């Protein structure tokens, strides 16, 4: 096991503090702003009032309180959960496959979730969409693993190729089902572009998976650093490479599938956030993983705020916002660093 005392590779308190600050700012903005234009001081007063043991006066109506506590707060919470998960899972995938271009949808998660959701829409079982998406996403990765291990040499490349094949196949199936049920085209399309918001139910639904997934991935942060030197080298250092890869992929799949189930296919977060974090704090997974959680959550909360305010009272699909603003921001960052 490599031990490194190098301060630069560990998580620096300064980066951590910055992450917490950015997330707090995004969350605050997310709660304070929205198409309903609630008076911000009153919103703050109401928020403090809701804390146990605090009693402040505010003049929000019952409807405004509903908007604040039943729509905005859960939406910010859900955005934080989904963003953190997609980012940390993306970073984990990049680690186990030693490939910076990998995102959490690599092994067929998106295609599987898309097929599951489309089938649910086509059979008018809208309530079952999250479950169907979750099952589809998980099943796709299991299939990828089975094929990759059966026909491949257990190298990451075989897995990735199996993932490409599975994703193409499932996408074909999804398109077929969608075309056969053209009446559902709009809802399917809208789901694929991603959307946050169904109140606290979704937060409760997704939270356990997200927490477990993040914990398992974080526990492997040092091993992912070792894995970066290559499979044989890591093996010779005593790292059970295949088992680590399987565990991390399982955890990342669980988290991604849960996130996708409640938010649709929000692209780009899983790539852009880990890379941004690496540019800020160096390549070690000991800093990349925890910072991805914080910045991923902040990024998603901020983009969702943009999605629901930029063209208010209409709303933009969040997937459009993540890519539209994320890509140029990322390029600017790269350029500054380069």
């Amino acid at each position, binding site marked *: 096991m490599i031990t490194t005392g190098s301060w630069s590779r560990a998580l620096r308190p300064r980066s951590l503090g910055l992450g917490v600050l950015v997330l707090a700012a995004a969350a605050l903005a997310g709660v304070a702003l929205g*198409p309903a234009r609630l008076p911000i001081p009153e919103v703050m007063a109401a928020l403090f009032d809701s804390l146990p043991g605090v009693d402040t006066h505010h003049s929000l109506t019952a409807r405004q309180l509903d908007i604040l506590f039943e*729509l905005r707060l859960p939406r910010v919470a859900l955005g934080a959960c989904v963003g953190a998960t997609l980012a940390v899972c993306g970073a984990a995938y990049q680690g186990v496959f030693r490939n910076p271009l990998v995102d959490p949808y690599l092994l067929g998660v998106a295609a599987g979730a898309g097929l599951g959701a489309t089938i649910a829409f086509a059979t008018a079982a809208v309530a079952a969409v999250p479950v169907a998406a979750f099952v589809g996403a998980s099943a796709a990765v299991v299939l990828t693993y089975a094929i990759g291990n059966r026909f491949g040499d257990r190298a990451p490349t075989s897995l990735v190729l199996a993932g490409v094949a599975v994703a193409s196949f499932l996408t074909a199936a999804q398109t077929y089902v969608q075309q056969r049920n053209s*009446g559902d085209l709009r809802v399917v*399309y809208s789901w694929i572009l991603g959307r946050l918001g*169904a109140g606290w139910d979704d937060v409760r639904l997704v939270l356990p998976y997200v927490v477990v997934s993040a914990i398992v991935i974080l526990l492997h942060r040092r091993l992912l650093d070792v894995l970066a030197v290559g499979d044989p080298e890591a093996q010779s250092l005593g790292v059970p490479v295949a088992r680590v890869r399987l565990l991390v992929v399982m955890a990342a799949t669980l988290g991604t599938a849960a996130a996708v189930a409640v938010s649709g296919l929000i692209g780009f977060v899983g790539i852009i956030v880990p890379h941004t974090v690496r540019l800020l704090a160096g390549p070690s997974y000991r800093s990349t993983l925890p910072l991805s959680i914080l910045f991923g959550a902040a990024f998603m909360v901020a983009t969702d705020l943009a999605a*629901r305010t930029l063209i208010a*009272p*209409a709303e933009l699909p969040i997937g459009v916002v993540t890519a539209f603003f994320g890509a140029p921001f990322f390029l600017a960052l790269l350029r500054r660093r380069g």
Partner: protein
Amino acid sequence: MKKLCIGLLVLLAAACTGDATTTTVVAPTVQSATTSPPPTTAVMADTPQAIVSLSPTATEMLAAIGALPQVVAVDDQSDYPTNVPVTDLSGFTPNIEAIASYDPDLVVVSNDIDGMVGALESLDIPVLLLPAAVTFDDVYAQISQLGEATGRFDEAEALTAEMREAIDELTAGVEPPVEPLTYYHELDPGLFSVTSSTFIGSIYSLFGLQNIADAADPDGFGYPQLAEEYVISTDPDFIFLADTEFAGQSAESVAARPGWGEMSAVTGGRVVELDDDVASRWGPRVVDFVQAVAEALALQPVG
């Protein structure tokens, strides 16, 4: 195509102007929103006896003017009335060979997907393009066109007269409210809606209802996706659900949505469950749609 993205239809229809000009039955291409298509004067030598309808709305119109005996096949989305010859044909992913195999002497479509009109014309199959209506006049004009094309002009005239009369009666029967009432028309649970510039919106405008989606559509596209906060804070007097069948929404499910339970439409029993198909087609059943709105206004006074 019961819920096929209507906006897409409009766009497609707008894009295909000029593609369908050389048929025996003159297929009037999309007219602008302001001018309704004049009834064409083209007369076919013989009335068609093997009509294929790839538009659920056209199927309903054909049935209502008594032309069903001349119809040999309708597309997979045509489900009203129930005695129509449903096939696997699709107006959405059209297969020209499959359509031609019915040896039709008239094909009715609602939009020119994949250059279908040109392809059918190249097989010397007459095509009638009846795009999504923008106004009531479009509806009546399309029924007249079908009447002319099928040799049932009198039936078509009788039908449109009957529809006009019924709609006039329904709108006259509702007292105009003192304060303008507002409404939200839901296309799907993702809060896609219609503005009053659409055909659906024009039905509510008959009753002087004000559409909350108008503010969300400065570009006049007609089908904006609304922010949830906006819908709730606007607190419309009526909520009309056009996603009851395909997305299973109901007054109960709306009441159970987070933050929706205290909306005045919900507590006042003014969440109206529409028939998805009736609320998205522009055929003879628009009268049913108008009636549903009229009944909602009459039964559930606001206050």
